[in-house]
């Protein structure tokens, strides 16, 4: 299936670009005002004194952003791009294009590829592929060789090659001694350790949240405790080692409490939540739609509420998608047999606005913070701000435009979204990476 959306590459990144008259929301500087944003040769700049639009001089490429929101380029610090190994699900190029369509100018890709990103060679491969991609792709390296949880991967070499964090995402590091050493070892690079917290004995065989719905459906459940016992363990180990922990895809109310308490005690822990975990409950599984099968699983309304509270009070620092593409064939099977994961890059912004901003849970400023400067700081990435000197990574979106999620809007190679039929709010119009402008059209949208 092909998408009915753009892209149009409008500039090559050289020269002047001005975004006129938009609402500028830049959490790093606290700016929230209507104005112009300038960039030149791939960098954000102040308004140049010799810029001319009508009278000769230097003519900028002009984007009319009246009624639109202009933010630093969105950053998704948790995606699965499937390359190398499962290019039928996604490639670095297709995933980056989906990211661009979703307003992202940078993503960090998880290492559970085939082969695993657990050595410098694979890091080089990913970065080489990323050079042709529409947006910036930062690899995350594995904590342990092959993500097998037995022996540390060659982390120093991977850091030299360009990784921005380490994670065995998709798998828990079962042995607490290995996790302790990983946390200690990572300290010398200043990179975060990003655990996928899941006690594999407690979750064994589970395919959805354990609770009333799993009881009714007769599906094996994964209890909240499977996540929480490891969140508690990893916080304790972070305190022991004085290292830096970033907890991936928090899904339970209990995890939010543990992280809040850890932060209060001054432990260097940050956390992320996904749009599906703040938007959907396990009620969505009732039809046995395998696009609702995701790990950690969709939880209860109480958990969704706690995630939203955690986002609102700053316990959860980052919104990340855990974009996990799977082919139609992979998902068109019995619920028990389907792989975990759903695509998220192209629905994230629409869900953030519809489910968090419009509802008053987060200000637009705070929501954008969790998708720009917060992940940039955790991973030590350039960007995340519109301040002069920063890379010219900018997102322009129409905050009022509504659009309906249908299979043909997606640019991802996969279609496994649980949001079909939903009406989202906020349509990306331009994604600018190092000054290169891509224009996106969202068909069928309507202004409200």
């Amino acid at each position, binding site marked *: 299936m092909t998408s009915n959306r753009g892209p149009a590459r409008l500039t090559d990144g050289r020269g002047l670009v001005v975004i006129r008259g938009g609402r500028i929301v830049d959490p790093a500087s606290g700016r929230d005002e209507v104005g112009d944003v300038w960039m030149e040769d791939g960098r954000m700049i102040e308004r140049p004194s010799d810029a001319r639009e009508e009278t000769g001089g230097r003519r900028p490429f002009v984007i009319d952003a009246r009624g639109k929101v202009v933010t630093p380029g969105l950053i998704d610090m948790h995606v699965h791009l499937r390359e190398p190994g499962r290019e039928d699900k996604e490639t670095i190029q297709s995933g980056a294009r989906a990211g661009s369509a979703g307003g992202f100018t940078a993503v960090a890709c998880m290492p559970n590829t085939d082969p695993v990103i657990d050595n410098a060679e694979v890091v080089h491969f990913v970065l080489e592929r990323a050079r042709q991609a529409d947006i910036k792709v930062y690899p995350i390296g594995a904590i342990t060789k092959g993500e097998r949880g037995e022996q540390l991967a060659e982390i120093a070499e991977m850091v030299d090659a360009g990784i921005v964090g380490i994670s065995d995402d998709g798998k828990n590091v079962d042995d607490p001694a290995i996790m302790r050493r990983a946390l200690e070892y990572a300290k010398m690079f200043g990179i975060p350790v990003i655990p996928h917290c899941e006690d594999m004995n407690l979750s064994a065989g589970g395919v959805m949240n*354990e*609770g*009333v719905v*799993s*009881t*009714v*459906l*007769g*599906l*094996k*459940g994964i209890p909240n405790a499977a996540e929480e016992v490891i969140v508690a363990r990893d916080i304790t180990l972070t305190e022991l080692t004085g290292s830096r922990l970033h907890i991936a895809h928090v899904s339970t109310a209990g995890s939010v409490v543990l992280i809040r308490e850890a932060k209060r005690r001054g432990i260097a822990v940050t956390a992320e939540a996904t749009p599906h975990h703040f938007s959907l409950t396990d009620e969505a599984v009732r*039809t*046995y739609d395998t696009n609702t099968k995701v790990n950690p699983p969709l939880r209860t309304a109480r958990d969704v509420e706690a995630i939203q509270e955690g986002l609102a009070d700053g316990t959860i620092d980052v919104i990340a998608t855990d974009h996990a593409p799977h082919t139609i*064939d992979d998902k*068109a*099977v*019995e*619920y*028990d*047999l389907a792989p975990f994961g759903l695509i998220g890059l192209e629905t994230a912004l629409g869900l953030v606005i519809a489910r968090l901003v419009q509802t008053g849970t987060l200000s637009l400023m705070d929501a954008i913070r969790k998708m720009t400067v917060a992940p940039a700081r955790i991973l030590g990435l350039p960007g995340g701000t519109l301040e002069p000197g920063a890379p010219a990574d900018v997102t322009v979106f129409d905050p009022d435009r509504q659009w309906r999620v249908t299979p043909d809007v997606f640019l991802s190679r996969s279609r496994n979204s649980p949001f079909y039929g939903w009406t989202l709010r906020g349509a990306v119009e331009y994604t600018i990476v190092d000054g290169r402008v891509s224009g996106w059209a969202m068909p069928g949208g309507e202004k409200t």
Partner: protein
Amino acid sequence: MEQVQLRSPHLLGLEELTREEIQLILDTADSFKEVIERPIRKVPALRGKSVVNLFFEPSTRTRISFEIAEKQLSADVINFSASTSSVAKGETLRDTVRNIEAMKVDVVVIRHAAAGAPQFLTRCLTHSVVINAGDGAHEHPTQGLLDLLTIRDRFGRVDGLRVVIVGDIAHSRVARSNIWGLRTMGASVAVCGPPTLIPPGIETMGVEVFYRVEDALREADVINVLRIQLERQHGGLFPTLREYARTFGITPERLIHTKPHAIIMHPGPINRGVELSTDVADSERSVILDQVTNGIAIRMAVLYLLNRGGDDDVE
């Protein structure tokens, strides 16, 4: 009776059925019971229709019961079991059933280890009727219906009775279908077993939970005993079958303080001496073989009602 119809083209579970729909199935089954007693047990209701029994899990009584019901309704019957099929060659369930449907099958009866497999089939198929013959730990609607019919036969009603289900509730599709059906028909339902075999939130289905079997049985009119599987012991859900039998096994001693008219049901196959002692299984209280006979009437009723084109009647 003819005003009421089944709303869904499929039978996936008892959760979705209304009181009127269940009533209709039970009443229709009653009229088929008479057919079963005839010397020539055959009616033409499904003549010219093809029914395929897709059994992806081992089953003896349910498969035979469906097959007898189908044949007595004059359907053409095709049996399929996973071991002899292309499933062994790695074909997906979706492809398997789409191929079967392309052979112009009217009804697909499916037994599958994965909960939700029948729902999945309804999305794969374009015109066939899907009947759930047991999906994982989700539902086993014809078993629930035959249990209701057996209870109604004995008491003349279901409304107001107290039914206790004893055993492995967590892994039991029979328990779930029974709970939905019994609650819809006005019975009060309790479940009893060790907490490791009681699934979370079961109370929200409208049942009471007991851990002491003596307490659970006291007010029971119906005691439905579930099969306990050895693999649950290996899963660490209870220490030994021996301890399970001592703690939850239904024995004559445990029945002393129950209502004298209380009946014993079991979906089979029985582990004699584990969940049910032989004396109880073969006692006057036991209606276990009535359940088996009623299974045919219920399956005939379901097949008939889901294939009723218009004016043809039971006679």
